[in-house]
């Protein structure tokens, strides 16, 4: 039995359906992420799990028990809020002690657990400070400590890193992964940041328009997006209109206007189906001259434009009439911002199974 079973949850606000029949199972000990653009329903779903909002239909079972019958303050579920929501009139130690006091634990035990908790988040010397006197990263850690001190069954995190700058965010991501491993508590993490989701999660549910578009491990989500939305939302992706000319179990042949025949994979597609070819730029090899392998698609074209990003350069290659394909070239040699210039003839190649055909 999964720790949290979500069954056909629907939540409407007037005419707007925020969550539209979502079902998923979240396993104990998992780092689970709800990923999607703003308004996709991820936060609404999180608020319903916490109990701040109730679904119009569907049910949620925690350890097999219906959550609807448990008041929000009685649920063994704690939340880390986007704004942290630390109590400004209480010291750091008082903030962390709050959930323990609500459970009416003894003074000695509260003191001991708060001290331990402060040590865990490396804030042992900050217990007497007020939240207003802390930096953003420190507040974040206090919010985590406060939500974890009670050992909840489930920890909900609502875009907890959104307010931090990038350097600190990367550092906190590592801390979060380690913390989750250490405490072994199930995390449900809400974010609109796909790199964060890929880096942190055991599994990701990509949401859009109140529905789950794809639920899978990060590498599966990235490498085998189920549809155009997922391919487009996660990372960057070449999306090229295509039509199936020869269907196949392992390998298929697509017809692309202005380019010709391209080999790709999609076990399910049938001949004549129209859709798109999704191809990650970093899977496309690019050079002035290439010796293609037998299992590669190979095309000649011209550099249409390029973007120097520091670690890599993104080349936009025109390979046919109106067909542009992005390719990444790592800048592994020092002092050479670009190898190719606009207008240069180039060759590109990619393994046929790097490209995925998506229906519709």
């Amino acid at each position: 039995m999964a720790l949290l079973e979500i069954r056909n949850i629907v939540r409407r606000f007037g005419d707007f359906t925020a969550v539209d029949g979502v079902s998923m199972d979240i396993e104990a000990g998992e780092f689970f992420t709800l990923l999607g653009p703003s308004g996709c329903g991820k936060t609404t779903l999180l608020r319903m799990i916490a109990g701040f909002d109730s679904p119009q239909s569907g049910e949620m079972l925690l350890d097999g028990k219906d959550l609807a019958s448990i008041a929000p303050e009685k649920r063994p579920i704690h939340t880390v809020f986007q704004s942290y929501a630390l109590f400004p009139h209480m010291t750091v130690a008082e903030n962390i002690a709050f959930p323990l006091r609500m459970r009416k634990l003894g003074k000695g035990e509260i003191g001991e657990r708060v001290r331990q908790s402060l040590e865990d988040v490396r804030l042992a010397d900050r217990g007497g400070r007020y939240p207003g006197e802390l930096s953003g990263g420190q507040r974040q850690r206090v919010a985590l400590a406060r939500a974890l001190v009670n050992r909840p069954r489930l920890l909900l995190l609502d875009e907890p890193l959104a307010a931090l700058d990038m350097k600190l965010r990367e550092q906190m991501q590592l801390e979060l992964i380690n913390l989750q491993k250490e405490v072994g508590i199930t995390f449900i993490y809400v974010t609109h940041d796909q790199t964060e989701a890929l880096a942190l999660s055991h599994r990701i549910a990509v949401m859009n328009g109140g529905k789950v578009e794809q639920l899978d491990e990060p590498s599966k989500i990235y490498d085998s997006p189920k549809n155009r939305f997922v391919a487009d939302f996660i990372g960057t992706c070449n999306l090229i209109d295509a039509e199936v000319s020869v269907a196949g179990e392992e390998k298929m042949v697509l017809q692309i206007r202005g380019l010709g025949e391209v080999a790709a994979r999609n076990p399910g597609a049938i001949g004549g189906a129209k859709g798109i070819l999704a191809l990650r730029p970093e899977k496309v090899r690019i050079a002035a001259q290439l010796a293609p392998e037998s299992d590669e698609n190979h095309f000649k074209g011209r550099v249409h434009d390029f973007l120097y990003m520091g670690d890599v350069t993104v080349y936009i290659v025109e390979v046919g009439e109106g067909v542009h394909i992005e390719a990444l070239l790592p800048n592994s040699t020092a002092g050479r911002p670009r190898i190719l210039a606009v207008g240069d003839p180039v060759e590109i190649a990619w393994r046929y199974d790097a490209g995925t055909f998506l229906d519709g």
Partner: protein
Amino acid sequence: MAKHLGKWLISGPPVLYLIVFFVIPTCIMVLASFRYAGEYGGLAPVLLHDTSGAHLNLTLESYHEFFSDFIYSWLFIKTLVYALVTTFCCLLMAYPLALLIARSASKYRDLLVLLVILPFWSNFLIRIYAWMILLGPQSAFSAALNGFLGIFGVGPVRLLFTPFAVVLCLIYVQLPFMVLPLYANLEKHDPALLDAAQDLGANAWQRFWRVTFPLSLPGIYAGIALVFVPVLGIFAVPDILGGTRGIMIGNLIKQEFLEARDWPFGSALSIMLTIGAMIIVGGAALFAGRRRNGDV
């Protein structure tokens, strides 16, 4: 100098205004409290000229009078009690109202605040005279109350010209001054804090006493100051509704100036009132400040 010119242009006029209409009059009043009364009211001259030359004509007579008769201190204590009861009742009624307004949908909030300050649109004295009619023996309100009390064999009671009438009207007059600072404070509270408290196991009662209430303390202090201090010096309400039993220190001060024509004693009473109010408010602020610093 030019750098400070803008600062002086902005802060100069209000500072000047306060000096002319507040600081100087206060000094005049302090001085007046040490002077002798003039023969036909007003004040006797500060300097007396006789054969040995000019010398100061000042006295502690007014303060001596204040402390020699307990009736004045008693009136002070009575005024203090009226002010405390008024402030406490205002707080008790204003808090739920302010909370209700702060938690209602934002499109209704301005309208509700407008309703709170609506009484200010009609004249202060007219509103007090309206209470006179309402509390008078012929009024439907009095009749209904006495009819109700009659069932239990009590009464009839007289409402007008009693301390009860005074405090009732003081509460009415001062209520908006408690609601507004409380609302201004409560409206700013981050709703996520209540979500967090609930999420961490606090029930509605605990959420109020551990989050909303402590965070609203600055609003409560502001409201108390705005209600309590003006009530100490008020005289129109007890004058109209209080009769002889309901008079307050403000009435006595007015009497000393206008009827008894003893300006020095009236000034001394005013100074004592100001000092008393400063001690109480200052003490409360000190206490509040200590609480804020986390000693409790």
